């Protein structure tokens, strides 16, 4: 590696102040620090530092998403061949899924990082690592048949409106990846919802077996169907919902794979277990309430199935836990998570226009997170004032 290091040291003067390519300093630094942990030493304060930095943190979140991604790739292939009525092998399914999903990931990363680099360059700061995560989150919440240009557009929107206008990583109010999804959802509803977008190839008018339907379970529930069936009319069990061989966005279907990711996030201390737990708790409570007062089939869907359906688990584990857009106080995290789960199921069941309530619930609570924090902090301030008065 020392040869590579020597080469970098050789070209480095070109981007320093006064160098020919000073314009590309941020970009150069991004690649350099990507390859090598820099040799910066502590100058003030503590002389030693914890080995964890932003890169490691973001890297681990990406690792945690791998199970959901791999499952999503297989699931894409599985449903494609199910629609075609072909008995494909495991590897054929993986291959099909790969050639459909991989381009979305590439577009998301290339466009997103490109935008980030331009902004870092203009502002003259280092490229922040936040997009490593957003770049993977965006593909995982897309329907597989989404046109690539839409992914690109949504990514640019997410980076600029979702993040950079607020000052970049750490300053944003809304979760950038969800901003991307919400943007597409409202700008291009026909490509983001309905029955045809969830199965790879379906929207392009491929030949399917007779009577095939690509409707998601939530889509069927919204029609007040009491029995949920797959594309060729076989009934789904709760087990299917847990494992995830159901139609849906690329990474959201398998609760099992998402829980694996949750395990990684919680074990490494990167994701807040308080948020994850309380989102599920909030969802369960709302589900129970709806079950109790059920007047239609959708309200009768057992509360625990709600937690397995749609983007609920994915939102709870990967979206709600984004530390920047979530509440920052520990007590606030309980409230924040609970309300996300609670509202997600409420919107899902009682608002027929949006069978996917998770996205809206998280975005809504993103907006309210500072308010929750405000009250938690005020409480601490009041306690301190009270103490001073009692003593005086």
């Amino acid at each position, binding site marked *: 590696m020392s040869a590579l290091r020597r080469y970098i040291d050789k070209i480095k003067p070109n981007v320093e102040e006064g160098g020919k390519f000073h314009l590309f300093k941020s970009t150069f630094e991004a690649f350099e620090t990507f390859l090598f942990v820099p040799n910066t030493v502590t100058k003030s304060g503590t002389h030693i530092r914890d080995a964890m930095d932003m890169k*490691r943190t973001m890297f681990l979140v990406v690792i945690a998403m791998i199970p959901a991604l791999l499952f999503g790739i297989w699931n894409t292939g599985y449903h494609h061949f199910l629609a075609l009525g072909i008995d494909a092998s495991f590897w054929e399914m993986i291959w099909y899924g790969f050639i459909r999903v991989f381009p979305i990931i590439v577009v998301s990363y290339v466009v997103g990082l490109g935008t980030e680099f331009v902004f870092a360059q203009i502002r003259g700061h280092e490229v922040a690592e936040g997009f490593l995560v957003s770049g993977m989150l965006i593909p995982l919440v897309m329907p597989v048949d989404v046109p690539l240009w839409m992914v690109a557009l949504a990514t640019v929107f997410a980076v600029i409106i979702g993040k950079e206008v607020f000052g970049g990583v*750490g300053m944003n109010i809304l979760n950038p990846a969800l901003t991307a999804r919400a943007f597409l959802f409202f700008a291009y509803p026909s490509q983001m919802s309905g029955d045809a977008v969830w199965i790879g190839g379906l929207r392009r008018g491929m030949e399917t077996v007779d009577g095939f339907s690509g409707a998601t379970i939530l889509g069927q529930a919204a029609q007040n169907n009491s029995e949920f069936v797959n594309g060729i009319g076989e009934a789904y069990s709760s087990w299917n919902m847990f494992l995830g061989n159901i139609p849906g966005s690329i990474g959201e279907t398998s609760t099992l794979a998402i829980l694996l990711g949750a395990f990684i996030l919680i074990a490494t201390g990167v994701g807040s277990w308080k948020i994850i737990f309380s989102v599920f708790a909030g969802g369960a409570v709302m589900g129970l309430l709806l079950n109790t007062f059920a007047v239609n089939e959708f309200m009768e869907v057992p509360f625990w199935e709600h937690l397995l359906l749609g983007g609920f688990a994915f939102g709870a584990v990967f979206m709600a836990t984004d530390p920047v857009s979530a509440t920052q106080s520990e007590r606030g995290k309980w409230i924040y998570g609970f309300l996300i789960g609670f509202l997600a199921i409420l919107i899902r069941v009682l608002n027929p226009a949006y069978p996917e309530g998770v996205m809206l619930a998280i975005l809504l609570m993103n907006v309210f997170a500072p308010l929750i924090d405000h009250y938690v*902090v005020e409480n601490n301030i009041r306690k301190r004032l009270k103490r001073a008065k009692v003593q005086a």
Partner: protein
Amino acid sequence: MSEIIKIRKGLDIKLKGKADKIFIKAPRSKTYAVKPIDFHSLTPKIVAKPCDEVKVGSVLFYDKYRPEIKYTSPVSGIVQTIVRGERRRIVEVVIEDDGKDTAESFLQGDPGKLTREQIAENLLESGLWPVIQQRPYGIVAAPNDVPKAIFISGFDTAPLAPDYDFIMKDTEEDFQTGIDALAKLTDGEIHLSLDASYPAAKTYTNAKNVVRHLFKGPHPTGNVGIQIHKISPINKDEIYWTVKPQDVVAIGKLFKTGKYDPNVIVALSGSEVKKPVYYKLIRGAQITPVIEDNLLKENVRLISGNVLTGRQISNEGYIGFSDSQLTVIPEGDHYEFIGWVLPGLKKFSVSKTYLSWLTPNREYRLDTNLSGGERPFVMTGEYEKVVPMDIFPVQLLKSIIVDDIDKMEQLGIYEVIEEDLALCEFICASKTPVQTVLRQGLNTLRKELE
């Protein structure tokens, strides 16, 4: 004795190179220095000019804004140089030692029979007053204030911290005299905090005139700020004083002998030291005799104090005024190829993001690499795990960054100084300079209130 106050939050960083419990009397250094930068917000006014002859206890400089607070020479000899740094700020006053230890004479007597004024006067004249630190702000106490109470932490939990039970052996009498002197300075109590994990030194257990408290927990449990917070938290307009155990002994010796006794015990520790042991030194000693032929490699960082709050010094540097520890760790000025992807078995992290958590009892050889770049606040809930106080550290720091004085006060800036939040800086994934920011806030607040 009171019940044990248990503290759960915090972090013990296990480093290599703990000092063995052996005393070595170090050869005398050629030069000694008193450093104004050891005291926050001090503007020194120089009295001793280069080539002046000084004795132990002769005034070198005093506080420009509080001229009664004097800083005196720890040895006899001649003033060699006055080293200035940026903007001609005085960094150190260096004295060439003549080895004779001729000393100035101060008041001698039983503190119990002296008045508050006499005691304060004696401490101010001898140059021992600056060992008394004031909370809030962590600055040298104001002689006219009467503190609500005085706190002494009898132990230190910082990485590689010296064992005070070992240091304080055989100081019973002087420690008691010191306590008696301090007791005259406050209307309240003198609180002495001890580590409940092992039996305390006799010096502590036999001390009279103090209220003892037992603490148990990881660093920063040994920090006096944390102890104050648990025993009697600081409110606005309240003043507490803090003194370190060795300084109490020095005060005791002053009243017993009428001389300023500059002897201190310093633990030499750290992974790059050949023989980490305890040294009997003189305050402000040049460290060269101690580290000569005693380091494992060249490229090291020498720290007067501990790795979290200490000050970097050079090979020819001087130990800080109130430091009981000297730490030597490797410099981290090297690149690491894709270090953020590797499993990291030898990397220390409070999170479990590196596999080193598989070996919890390992002692680490950590260097000074920043391990990443500085970023805005992203992660949350990290700081709270290492601050055992009812305080919101992130919100407090943000209020300082945006210069919101009301919020700083409301969020409890009075209760903390740098050492209390040092662990936040250590664990911060965004590499925020927490201690620097906090000091800025404390300075802003002081300016506003004066």
